[in-house]
Each structure stands twice: as C-alpha cells, then as structure tokens.
C-alpha cells in the first residue's frame, strides 16, 4: 500500500554538555527497507531516532526524507509514525480512538477514521479490543495499538525505539516477528532501535551497529555475523572466543588450524572465533578438558579449558553434547569460517 520513502541522515552531530551522543552519524535507508540500529546502552541510538523524528535537534548535519531536507521541520510536520519504549497510548481515549487520533488531526472524516482504525486493528489483530481503554490492555497489546496508531497516518517513515524492551521474553519474540510481518506488508521505510542483538538480527534488512555515537558497520544480518568489519562489531554481535592467532598473508593460524582471515585483521593478536565454529571431539589424547556444559534446548554450550588455562566456548547440537561429561578430554577443531584477528588487548 506504500512504496516507501528513502531516508538519509548526513553527518549528524549532537552533544549534551560534554557528552557526544552522536559523533558524525551517516545512514542511508532505502525505500521500504527496515534498518535496525544496534548498540550498547548510551551509544546514541535513541538520539539518532529522535533527531530523525524531529523531537531533538542536531548540532550539525542533515536529515533528508524522500529527497527533501527536513532538518529544520518541526516534529508534527514530518509525517513519521513513532512507537516508543514507554507505553504512550492516550489514557483518555479508547483503543480505536487512539488509532484514529492522527487521522483526526489530519482532518479525515469520521467515516474514514472509523474504517481506517478498523483496518489497522485488524492488521495488529486487536479488532475485538477497539472499545477498551489502554489500562485494560496488556503491555504487548498496548504496543500493538501504538504500532497501529503510528501506521494509521500512512507515515513516510516508521520509527521504533526499543518497542519491546518492557515486555516479557515470550511476548517480545512474538511481537518482534509480527512487527516484521506488518512492516513487510505495508512496505513503510522503518528505523528500529534496540540493544538486543537477537532482535536486531531477526527482523532487519540491514543492521547498523553503533558505538560511541558513530556507525561501526552496516550490513545484512548474515554478513554482519560472518564478516564483522571491526573488533567492536565482532564482539558485540554474537559470542566470541578470543584465541591467540598469527596472520600469514590472508590466513590466520589459530591453535594449529589455518583459517581465512577477514579483511581488516591485525598481523597478530587474538582471533575472534564463534562458538559454533568450535568442534569438540571426545579424544583421550585431546588438549582440553570439559569444564561446563549448559543445555539450551536444541543446542548446548560447552566450555573447555586448555592445558595453558585458556578457556574455549563451543556450541554444538544437544544430541552430540550428550556424549560429553565434565572432565572428559576433548580435541578442538575449528571450522574454516573466516575470522577477524584483532590486536591482543
């Protein structure tokens, strides 16, 4: 129903007193794309989103939406739907009235508003709750209504600031997938902000990893995971073992294994190796001892300690992990997945 609008953030800077919340953030979002900004708390994600929404002013830089410069346009003229971290439904209005609120401001007739609110509630699966008040809804339902309310005005851009962080784990996963389904259905260009990497990897077309007010890397979830461009990305996204390594040309030598080194690797230091790249094979002559086994359902995580004290985390199918017991000797093999080598800290 919506072909999508391109968004550009150009060299945004924003300081609060001495704190640089944004330090030259540049980000291009294609029409209809869902970009997730991922980063630790305090890295400037919310600030970036709020500057795009017009709720905050940048010290310098530009916000362009659909080719137009919106840098100095006020928030209520920007045509952006926003879902907040805190519950933000208007308590004095029913669910349906909340959804219709933006349309009323845009001067739509009652008939149009009612129809559209109904459609939006169908989209988020809350038609039955139209006459309720926000206090009568669960947290997950309130965020769905907030999403319906944001989309009702057919915004150029949809903005979501950690919309799931106040919900419990199960609802979080459900609603996350639903947000993605709805976003694909309406085709609205979307910026989603979160500190939860699993959430980011699950819903994004592209994930932008932020650190200290700048973008470290922006890439598809698979690319980000398999080819992190910087040590920060490698360590922030997914778990990593830090294993001593030497780089020879474009090959890293890690514990006797020769593995391709990713571009940007240091000459020597530690390789960041994913747990799923570590293969544990029971072997009486192996170099490591199993120290913990954590059962996670289909997968298990096993830590073992080398004779020099280095601990290595491996992830394997639970059916394979059953064969291991604490204290077993194991041999470690590394998959030939490319790794990033960073200078030892």
């Amino acid at each position, binding site marked *: 129903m919506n072909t999508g609008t391109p968004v550009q953030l150009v060299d945004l800077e924003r300081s609060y007193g001495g704190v640089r919340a944004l330090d030259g953030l540049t980000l291009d979002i294609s029409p209809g794309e869902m970009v997730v900004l991922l980063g630790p708390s305090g890295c400037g994600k919310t600030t970036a989103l709020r500057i795009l929404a017009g709720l905050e002013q940048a010290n310098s830089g530009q916000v362009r939406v659909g080719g137009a410069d919106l840098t100095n346009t006020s928030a209520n003229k920007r045509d952006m739907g926003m879902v907040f971290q805190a519950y933000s439904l208007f*308590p004095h209005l029913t669910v349906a009235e909340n959804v219709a609120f933006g349309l009323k401001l845009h001067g739509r007739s009652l008939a149009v508003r009612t129809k559209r609110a109904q459609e939006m509630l169908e989209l988020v699966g809350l038609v039955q709750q139209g006459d309720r008040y926000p206090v009568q809804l669960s947290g997950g339902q309130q965020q769905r209504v907030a999403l319906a309310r944001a989309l009702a005005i057919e915004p150029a851009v949809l903005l979501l600031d950690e919309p799931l962080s106040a919900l419990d784990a199960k609802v979080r996963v459900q609603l996350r997938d639903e947000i993605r389904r709805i976003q694909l259905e309406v085709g609205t260009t979307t910026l989603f902000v979160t500190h939860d990497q699993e959430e980011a990897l699950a819903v994004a077309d592209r994930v932008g990893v932020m650190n200290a007010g700048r973008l470290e890397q922006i890439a598809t979830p698979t690319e980000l995971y398999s080819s992190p461009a910087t040590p920060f990305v490698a360590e922030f996204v997914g778990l990593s073992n830090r294993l001593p390594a030497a780089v020879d040309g474009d090959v890293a030598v890690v514990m006797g294994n020769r593995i391709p080194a990713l571009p940007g690797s240091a000459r020597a230091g530690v390789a960041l190796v994913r747990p799923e790249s570590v293969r544990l094979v029971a072997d009486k002559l192996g170099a490591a001892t199993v120290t913990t086994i954590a059962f996670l359902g289909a997968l298990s995580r096993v830590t073992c300690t080398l004779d020099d004290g280095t601990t290595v985390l491996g992830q394997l199918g639970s059916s394979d992990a059953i064969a291991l017991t604490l204290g077993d000797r194991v041999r470690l093999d590394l998959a030939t997945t490319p790794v990033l080598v960073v200078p030892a800290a």
Partner: protein
Amino acid sequence: MIRVVRWALLLAFAVYFFIPLLAMLDFSTRKIGGAGRTLDAWKALGQDSQLTHAIGASLALAVCTVVLMLVLLLPTMIWVRIRLPKMTRVIEFLCLLPLTIPALVIVVGISGVYAWVNYFFGYSPIVLTFAYVVLVLPYSYRALDASLSSIDVITLAEAARSLGAGWYSVIVRVIVPNVWPGVLSAAFISVALVLGEYTFASLLGNYNTLPVAIALFGKSSGTISVAASLASMLFAAVLLLGLSFFGGRRRMSKGTSS
C-alpha cells in the same frame, strides 16, 4: 471496634461543622423581638440591589480567576515539564510564594499597582481577578502538579506531536483531558477562595464583592448578613458538587465521543 471509632469521628466532625450552620439558619429565620419564624431576611437577599450586584461580581470574579489561572498556569507547567525541567524548582517556589506572605502584606505591597490597574481598567470588582490569580496560585499549582505527575507528559506529548499535533492540540486534546481531575480541583479551590475572600476586596479599594457586602450588612442588619453568609456557603457547596458531578459525567461519557 474500628467501625465504632470511625462513626464516632464522623459524628464529631458533623457536629463540629453543622452546629454553626444550624445556628446561622436558626438566627437568620428568627422574628425580631418576637417568637416564631420568618423568611424576611432571606427574601431581602434577592431584593437588595447592592447584594445582588455583589453576588454577580463575586461569581464573575470566580469565573475570571479560574479562567485566567488555568490559561496562565497550565500551559506554563506543561511547558516546564517538557522543555525546561530545570526550571521546575523555580516555578514551584514562585507559585508557592503567596502562601508564605500574609494577605495584608500583599495588599500593602500591591495597592500602588492597583491605583494603575484602576486607572487602566476602570473601577470595577473584576480587576481583583489579577490579585486573586496570585492568591490561588499555590493551591492550583499543587492540584495541577499532582495531576501532571500521574501521567507521562513528555511521552504523551511526543506521541501526539509525531502524529501531527501542534502544541495547541497537544495541550487541549491530549494533556488536559488526562489531567482533568486536577483542573477541576484547581478550579474548585479557586472558586471557594474567591467567594470567601475579604481582605483584598475590602482593603484594595472597598470593591463590592459578596464578602464585603455581607460584612457591610452585618453592621445594619444582623439577620440579613447571616442569611447572606449561609446562602453563599450553600451556594459554594452546590457549585462544587455540581462541578464535580459534571466532571464525573464527562469522564464517564468520554467513551462515546471520538
């Protein structure tokens, strides 16, 4: 046991409040120099033109004070919460200041100003509105502040703005409906204060407001004066009940409007 104590307390309060009122009723319906009852004093209330003017003036003052107070205070408080949270203490201090200064001191302080107010706006009790807004500031501030604290003003305002609301819509369509109980109680207490205020009205220019008129009557006719005080108290009580009923109704029926 607790029930007994509760009822005993309630009874004690009822006696404390109602005995003076009943005494007033008794006094205002006595026949002077004789036995029996008469409503002469009460009838005189509606017939004395000075008194009817005073009633009108006090009502107009109450309305103007409430309106001006809300127009000044509510947007300011919302703005401070959203944009200038650092100013909260300052605003609070300024609003509570009138509480700490005796009315007489304020009167002495602003009587010079009122010479000018009278010069510009003419000599009419309505000009007391300016002084009364200051007078009701501490109470109104408290009522509105409690209400504003009960909602997430910043997030609601931002949500409304992202949906296309200008500041006027944010305040009128989003914030005010959600702080309506606070607005009502600020209005109540202002009305009650204005209807009973004597010091300013009398000393700033002997304006003909209800309390001033009642005091004046006290010197000529005791029964009429007491009837007028009782009437004004009853009137205030009815007004407040009516307002709270109206407020309650509004909240109940909000589901049907859109």
